[in-house]
């Protein structure tokens, strides 16, 4: 009798109890965003084949629509590519000349060589499922040597970085998420700044000295500060100056990418050796 009454009471209060538990979970997630990383990636790992299966028809549909719209534009695209190719041939000659000059100057100064980058190419399998979180899921994890913090590139430039890694899948925080902050360099002005997401299409350039003038069209590349990403990865260009604040449009549409490239962290033993020699100083 007593047990039955208790069960009745529990069933009456269970929605409120569950709502209370949800609030506690929410507060824990607000206080420590990384707290739930493990369970999140375990859930993603377990369900990534199902997510991929359900998403497959929509991926095919996207590709078909893209192909169909591409066919109508193919003539104009062909003319544009021919003109671009001609221009690129001229640029190629200039680039070869500059490379040779750069190499001889580096040899003269005995500069430590930059390690060669290697990439992991993988497919985007899912979206974030929320209007307020700008992330995507990719089909590569620790099994494929993906590590937290690696830069992720779209077809034209960087689109985000790895924030959670599972065994078979990983989560990418896109550069336009409000929590994304990346150290960058404004080419031309050669000024370091931080590129911050706004949850909108345009990103904002912050921590710029007030006397620095940034022009519309300036290229934004990674600075490599902090050693998290390699320097020189293209991100986008300044598209407008809004109330004195430069706004940046990314080269790659972060949601348009079907496939992405993950930049592996450099592991060149020769470079490590050179750095050790430098820090040890002359014998």
């Amino acid at each position, binding site marked *: 009798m007593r047990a039955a009454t208790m069960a009745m009471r529990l069933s009456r209060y*269970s*929605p409120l109890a*569950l*709502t209370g*538990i*949800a*609030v*506690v*979970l*929410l*507060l*824990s*997630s*607000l206080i420590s*965003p990384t*707290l*739930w990383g493990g*369970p*999140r990636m375990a*859930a*993603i790992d377990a*369900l990534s084949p*199902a*997510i991929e299966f*359900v*998403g497959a028809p*929509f*991926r095919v*549909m*996207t590709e078909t*629509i893209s192909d169909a719209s591409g066919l109508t534009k193919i003539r104009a695209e062909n003319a544009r590519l021919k003109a671009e190719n001609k221009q690129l041939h001229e640029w190629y000659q200039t680039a070869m000349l500059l490379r040779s000059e750069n190499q001889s100057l580096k040899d003269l100064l005995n500069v430590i060589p930059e390690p060669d980058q290697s990439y992991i190419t993988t497919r*985007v399998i*899912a*979206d*974030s*499922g*929320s*209007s*307020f*979180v700008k*992330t995507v*899921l990719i089909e590569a994890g620790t099994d494929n040597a993906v590590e937290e913090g690696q830069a992720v590139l779209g077809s034209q430039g960087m689109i985000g970085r790895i924030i*959670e890694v599972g065994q078979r899948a990983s*989560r990418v925080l896109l550069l336009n998420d*409000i*929590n994304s902050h990346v150290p960058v360099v404004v080419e031309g002005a050669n000024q370091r700044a931080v590129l911050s997401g*706004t*949850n*909108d*299409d345009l990103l904002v350039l912050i921590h710029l000295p007030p006397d620095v003038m940034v022009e519309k069209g300036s290229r934004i590349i990674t600075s490599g500060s902090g050693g998290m990403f390699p320097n020189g990865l293209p991100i986008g260009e300044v598209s407008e100056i809004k109330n004195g604040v430069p706004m940046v449009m990314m080269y790659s*549409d*972060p*949601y*348009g990418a079907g496939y992405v490239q993950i930049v592996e962290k450099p592991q060149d033993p020769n470079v490590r050796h050179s750095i050790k020699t430098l820090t040890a100083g002359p014998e």
Partner: protein
Amino acid sequence: MSRHHFFGLHTLKLFGLYIILFILILLNLVKFPLLGSDGGKLSFLLIGIYFWTVYRPTLLPYPVIFATGLLLDLLSGGLVGLNAFCFMVVAMIVRGQRRFLLGQSWSVIWAGFCVAVTLVMGLQYTVYTLDALSVLPLKPLAFNLVISYLLYPLILPPMILLNRLLSD
């Protein structure tokens, strides 16, 4: 024998309901064509929760609603507990208004869903704005709200069919 048969069939139908809910969770994560960068973050799961709370609340107990919300939170990469909290609030309100809703026309029930989805997205917008300490853009929110309103009649047929099967 017939009781076993009935039990088996009923379990199968129940299984169908939970399969639909699971597919709706996964559809929440799928990237849809033609919706652009801000689209596709639709309230598929909320449609299922709203519909079954109105028509079959006994088949969708609160712990199941909580669990589906929590699973969506874990898969979406957002704040853990937020969807679970929003879905619990919606389920409690809808259960309170269930008798009124059951006597209404289809369009009134649809309007009820529009209120529910606006409430959920409004709550989420407020929490994420407070978390970021910055006012988030309203354009994606408005776009996803409108698409979600229009989505309800499209997702309805398989659920109405299952509801009829459950009544048999």
